[in-house]
């Protein structure tokens, strides 16, 4: 599948093959014994765990040590504190997922100014430039994920209804792209549907946001949630309200995969490839530390996951066999 979105500065995506490491690169990296710190928005999600695994495994193969993994808990203050501290420590590169936009711009800019390589993962605060403020962005094709989410939801939604778009209230490049793409696909392909957008300010307010949307829109006939963790909260809210609505989301977490396999509320998932994205992040960091040119944006395509192909996509995304319970649920 090709990349449908453009980068944060309108860049065309470079394929992960563009940052593939040669044997010589790996040999040089092992000799240099680089150190890398990781600052994530959260480490408490299936996506994060997979991505971290890809980064750590690839860096380890190149003889680079992960000195620290910071869990910011979606808190901008905690991220600013971590970056401010790490930029003065003895690390060669920092991998960061910015948790916000304007609030964390300056702390990220300071990392590059302190001489550290900064590899951004999934998000670029507005105003930061590749080459000077950061080395490269590695992400999924988030625009493509939004398109997949819409396309998978459409067949399950009756004509002339409302569809809910439950999206993140924080200004975040990745979720903005999914949000825009979902609405664009619906407008182009299902003009009979009205997209009703509702934003949640934090993960613990997903249920509240959805309740508002439900109470406000009696014709709601489907829902797209911009990633899987809030999607599972949304599914719980729907069940509590006794509503049987089709839901699509992004990221093949275990909870979402099980729900999809069992033929429950979730009818489709636009899956990222977090492990492979982590590999690309690490490869980009190594190439940059070896002073090789790297593209401003490396993107990986999304996967369209349905009940019929959830097992094989699970294997691809998780690099392991699908759980027996998932296979059993799919067969029922």
């Amino acid at each position, binding site marked *: 599948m090709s990349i*449908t*979105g*453009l*980068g*944060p*500065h*309108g*860049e*065309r995506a*470079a*394929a992960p093959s*563009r940052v593939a490491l040669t044997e010589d690169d790996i040999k040089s990296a092992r000799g240099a014994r680089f150190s890398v710190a990781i600052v994530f928005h959260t480490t408490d999600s299936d996506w994060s765990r997979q991505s971290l695994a890809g980064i750590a495994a690839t860096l380890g193969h190149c003889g680079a040590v992960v000195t620290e993994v910071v869990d910011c808990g979606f808190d901008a203050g905690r991220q600013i504190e971590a970056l401010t501290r790490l930029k003065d420590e003895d690390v060669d590169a920092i991998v960061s997922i910015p948790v916000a*936009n*304007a609030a964390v711009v300056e702390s990220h800019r300071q990392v590059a100014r302190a001489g550290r390589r900064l590899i951004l993962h999934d998000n670029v605060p*507005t*105003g930061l*430039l*590749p*080459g*000077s403020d950061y080395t490269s962005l590695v992400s999924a094709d988030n*625009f493509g994920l939004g398109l997949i989410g819409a396309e998978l939801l459409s067949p399950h939604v009756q004509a002339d209804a409302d569809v809910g778009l439950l999206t993140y209230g924080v*200004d975040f490049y990745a979720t*903005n*792209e999914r949000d*825009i*793409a979902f*609405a*664009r696909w619906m*407008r182009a392909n299902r003009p009979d549907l009205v997209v009703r*957008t509702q934003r949640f300010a934090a993960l613990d307010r997903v249920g509240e946001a959805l309740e508002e949307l439900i109470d406000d829109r009696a014709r709601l006939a489907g829902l797209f949630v911009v990633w899987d963790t809030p999607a599972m909260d949304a599914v719980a809210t729907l069940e509590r309200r006794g509503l049987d609505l089709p839901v699509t989301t992004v990221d093949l977490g275990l909870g979402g995969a099980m729900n999809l396999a069992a033929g429950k509320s979730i009818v489709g998932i636009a899956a990222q490839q977090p492990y492979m994205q982590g590999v690309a992040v690490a490869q980009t960091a190594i190439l940059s530390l070896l002073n090789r*040119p790297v*593209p*401003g944006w490396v993107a990986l395509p999304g996967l369209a996951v349905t009940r019929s192909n959830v097992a094989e996509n699970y294997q691809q995304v998780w690099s392991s066999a699908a759980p027996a319970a998932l296979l059993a649920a799919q067969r029922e």
Partner: protein
Amino acid sequence: MADLAVREKRAAKRGKGRPRNSEAAAPSLAAILNLVRTGRATTRQEIERASELGRAAVADRLATLGELGLVDESELGEASGGRAPRLVRFNEAAGHILVATLDQTALGVALSDLSGRLLIEHHEALDLTAPAEATIGRLETLFDWLLERIEPTRPVWGTGISMPGPVQSPPASGYLTDSPPLLPAWDGTPFVERLIARFAAPVWLRSSVETMAMGEAKAGEGVNAPHMLLVKVGKRIGAGLVVGGRLYRGALGASGLIGQLPVQANGRTGPLEVLAGSDAIAREGLVAAEAGRSPMLANVQKRTGAITAIDVGQAAQTGDPGAMEIMSHSGRLIGHTVATLANMLNPSLIVLSGSIAQTNDILLAAVRETVYGESHPLVTRDLGICASRLGSSAGLVGAAAVVVDALFEPGHLRSWILNGTPIAAPDFIELMRQARTICASGKSQSRDALAPPATEGTSPAAQAGPD
């Protein structure tokens, strides 16, 4: 005579230190606002020195600007011996600017504050050959999304659009009132009027090379380059020139159309953009793939059935010999034309822009080699040649800069400053009324620009908002 002098003295004394919401205050209000806005003065003492106004007059004008919500004096500066001075800051959040870049294959949108700093931006693929309604509708949808996403508490003060081709300058200064000739498929489409009517703000249009040049000068490679030449390489090849922070547009806004200049290649003579632009690169890539000179492009063709200029650039970057030769050849042709410009204009910096130029070191190296080889030694002594890092954001930053420069141009600023915002000034309210009438009737009007805005009889108390 003595009585008259005394009366004048008394009158001057009465007026001292009191707010004066008359048009007489507008020039000094505008001058002070621009001193503060551009950072040339940050305290009352600095404003007094730079404006040559007395302490009471400065206090009076700052009080008025504060009431209008244009400056803020709540922050304290650093003390140098005595009491810490109050800092005078321009309220960059008093309004917002909507900007967009339209090119052959992509649409970019952003919202900026009044300093021109982008607050949020988005880019997506677009086919500009689609019907005008599809493109304009998409642009409006994305502008709506930006406004809904950021939920600005202050209104939009201006809209800046970067167009793929040259934009004819309006015949007189003032607001653009209707849509100049832009694209053949858009003839008769009231593009400008629609934007004015829908977003309740004046519109400025510039060509993509003009906005990219402004963007690089304001926030990119050209920040410290007083004489900067930007060369955009894509399907079309164009140039933009910024001198002393100001865009050079030429007599009709058509400067920089260097893609039309004839060059010679392989025994053929043709326009630069036909022989060295992205279409030529893609075409040569296909030939190289089919002739077996480029294994990587042959592989791309086999998998996708086509070859784009981006494919050729990426293959060259990874060392494919056939692709490298194509990029190098294109770079030499572009470099030859750019060398002529460099010898003529003696810029301090040349920035190569466009997705191929930005991502390809071989093209950049070939341009550098040719320009340095074909220019006078004095021209190249301190000349820098680099690739843009802003990418398509340059056009957005530049479009915002065009709007900011126009809104705060001293003559224009004086016309609205007593209203506190340009969109509350009577001339703009009339312009919007006309635009809404045209949109309602579905017709375009004559191509006259409004005369410079009138300044009579405008006081903050008398202003009405634009609906």
